[in-house]
């Protein structure tokens, strides 16, 4: 085990800002993109089902 305590882990022995600054942004984007893409697909399916919506958007 690399870490003697949780605070050791969270501080990354002085590199916390850099390590977590990288990982948090990566995680945020890689969770946001699938959500946005999934919403895009559901919206496309919904608008294909609704002729009124189809005319409005095209």
């Amino acid at each position, binding site marked *: 085990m690399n870490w003697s305590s949780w605070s050791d882990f969270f501080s990354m022995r002085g*590199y916390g800002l*850099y390590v977590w600054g*990288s990982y948090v942004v990566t995680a945020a984007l890689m969770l946001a*993109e699938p959500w946005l*893409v999934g919403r895009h697909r559901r919206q496309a399916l919904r*608008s*294909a089902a609704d002729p009124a919506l189809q005319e409005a958007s095209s």
Partner: protein
Amino acid sequence: MKRPIRWFTFAAPSRFYWLAGLLNPWLWLIAAGLALAGLYVGFFVAPTDATQGESYRIIFIHVPAAWMSMVLYLAMAFWAAIGWMFNARMASMLARAIAPTGAMFTFLALWTGAFWGKPTWGTWWVWDARLTSELILLFLYLGYIALVASIDDVVRGDKAGALLAIVGAVNVPIIYFSVRWWNTLHQGATISMTAAPKMAHTMLIAMMLMTFAFWAYAFATVFTRAQALALERERDTDWVRDLALARKER
């Protein structure tokens, strides 16, 4: 008698849609599983680096993101070219679907690189060959996205985008070989085909797990976005109408 798989079958948007829908749940599962395993090995098994301390742990996302940024660009240019040459609708849609994910990985490579550069080089950014060419890659992605979005005629948009993507592909080998061709602050390739990896075994395992996780993630997001594009472009066809009605009746 075994029938050969006819891959061209999936050039039809309706069949592509079906195949992507079949594969996607598995791809998400693989991406999540590999990422969890990679993070576990990366943080709890891989030892502290002798010279860089804990800051080196950024490598587990930095290198996979940088690889994906280049691979996805080549994939985008490839499918854009196929779409242009053979008038293949699904190929052009795939090219468009790859661009945002590629741009995101390029941004992440730059972002994590900055957060790694600060503690190791003492600066967030330098205008050296590797960093500058990667920044140009981001601009190529953004330029491609803006260009295809600005042209209302989808077929003309696909062709203009293909031209930009193909010309821009010359940047990818420049990024890859920049650390060899020029004196840069950036370190050389971490692993190569010809030499033994210059890193501890567990570090390499963590990095490869994250790389495969990013691959699965990229396939899943690109497939889903391509599905959405196919639905939008083919909304006047029978297969989309049937799909939409089937969903409504449920």
